[in-house]
């Protein structure tokens, strides 16, 4: 089962074309990052994946069915989407109620509700906030509450729209733990982000978007070392890679330990 986009294009009702000819396949359990400048079409592309947007042309197939036969709310059982602004989503008066809302909406058994919510709460690390009103907790933590609420619906594919924005070190750590946890569960996570270091550390597959199209779909190592792609998409290498590039080191270095090895080798060959 997979998310498949076949020659999908999307235009707004006013005629503005936001996505042209998108082709991609995301399998179960894949961890994918989508990067690119603002305006490149990232958000409109992921909104096509859960039915918030409908393709103007092409086919959008999820888990074997064409999305045109289902409503967005129906598709969201398979594809969960966490909005960038948690305040657009949260409306319950306690964090626990927010997380439990969808399982209750689906009329699941009390046992099942507890099981799902406990798991979602554990993955997002919001245990200490359960009894609080979401409005009383800091904004970056509210982002985790919104994620937990979607996790409780146990989607097979999870879309995170800029979860790293405004997060501090602890927040990034929780996100990284979440990604590992999702991998363990076999859930695909698709993340839109601008944090290149975060991307290099956590994603095996990166989709680069520019000018309404997908211009690259590959590994971090290949993409961050492809000067043409970087220029077209307006993105930069992670810091360590920048150092390696300026020194002309071989090996498409991305991480510190690789830099250490390369530098020591360089030193060794000098002596």
């Amino acid at each position, binding site marked *: 089962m997979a998310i498949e986009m076949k020659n999908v294009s999307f235009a707004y009702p006013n005629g503005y074309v936001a996505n042209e000819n998108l082709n991609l396949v995301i399998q179960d359990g894949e961890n994918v990052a989508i990067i690119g400048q603002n305006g490149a079409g990232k958000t409109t592309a992921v909104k096509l994946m*859960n*039915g*918030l947007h409908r393709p103007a042309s092409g086919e959008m197939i999820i888990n074997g069915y064409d999305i045109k036969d289902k*409503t*967005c*709310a*129906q598709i*969201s*059982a398979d594809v*969960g*989407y966490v*909005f960038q602004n948690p*305040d*657009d*989503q*949260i*409306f*319950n008066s306690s964090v626990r109620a927010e997380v439990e809302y*969808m399982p209750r*909406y*689906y009329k699941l058994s009390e046992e099942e509700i507890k099981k799902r919510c406990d798991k979602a709460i554990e993955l997002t690390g919001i245990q200490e906030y359960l009894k609080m009103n979401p*409005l009383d907790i800091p904004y970056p933590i509210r982002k985790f509450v919104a994620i937990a*609420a*979607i996790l409780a*619906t146990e989607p097979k594919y999870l879309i995170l729209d800029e979860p790293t924005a405004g997060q501090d070190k602890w927040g990034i750590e929780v996100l990284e733990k979440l990604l590992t946890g999702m991998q363990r569960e076999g859930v695909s996570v698709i993340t839109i982000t601008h944090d290149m270091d975060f991307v290099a550390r956590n994603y095996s597959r990166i989709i680069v978007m520019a000018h309404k199209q997908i211009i690259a779909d590959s590994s971090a190592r290949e993409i961050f070392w492809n000067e043409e792609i970087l220029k077209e998409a307006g993105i930069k290498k992670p810091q360590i890679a920048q150092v390696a590039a300026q020194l002309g080191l071989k090996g498409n270095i991305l991480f510190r330990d690789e830099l250490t090895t390369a530098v020591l080798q360089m030193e060794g060959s000098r002596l």
Partner: protein
Amino acid sequence: MNQEFIDSFRHYQEYDNWFIGFNPLSKLNILFAFGLSAMFIKEWKYGFALCLMYCIFAILIGKAKPFFKSFSVLVLLFGVFTLILRQFSVHGTTVLFSFFGLFDVTEEALINGLDMASSLLGFSGAIILFFITTQMRDLMYSLEKRGVSHTVSYIILASFQTMKDLKKNMETIMESQKARGIETEGGIVIRVKAFFPILGPLILGAISGTEEKSIAMDARAFSAKCQHTFLRELKPVPVYEKIIVLLVNLFFAASVGFKIYTIFILK
């Protein structure tokens, strides 16, 4: 950068049509005077003549479509509805015709209804004309120049914008609720169920937004004590415009006088 656009601020704002180019307060005065006169002179011949004048005027100033769009709604609401209602509340003696022998339409009730309806339409027609010929920001500008507080002006304009934003915000919130699995498409029961999850974030968002907005406006020296200047200005009121306003006011005074005369003297 568009030089023409930037230059437009160096001169007074210009409008295509002579009436629309009138000072907002002049327009308010003129139209309000006509509107009130319809309320005073509650005679259907006057009222409908006035409405006809509005229609012709709207066409002449090039605002036919927006005027007829709003006015036709009011004709139905105020006009027809009032007329029918009056048939039930006013009892007359001269029966004109009967509805299936059950209900009589009397001459007195009909005239009364037409008087009422036409005065309401005469008033509301003027209001519509005002709003389609005047931008709120121009009205606020004129009021501020006359000494109305800057804060009041901001609150009024911001409220209008907030209402427009409300619709957009509601769409975003609805999207995010759809995305988590709350069904919003379908029959009335489903839509009503989806209403509550949308209302909460909408209202709370509006409230929390207000605090940040006031801090933001503070940062723009909103409360600075010095005299404000204006980037965008309207021309000062020319003499002929003042004369027209005066004439309209005199007409209004005359019509009130005439009405009083007919009520008290001629009785």
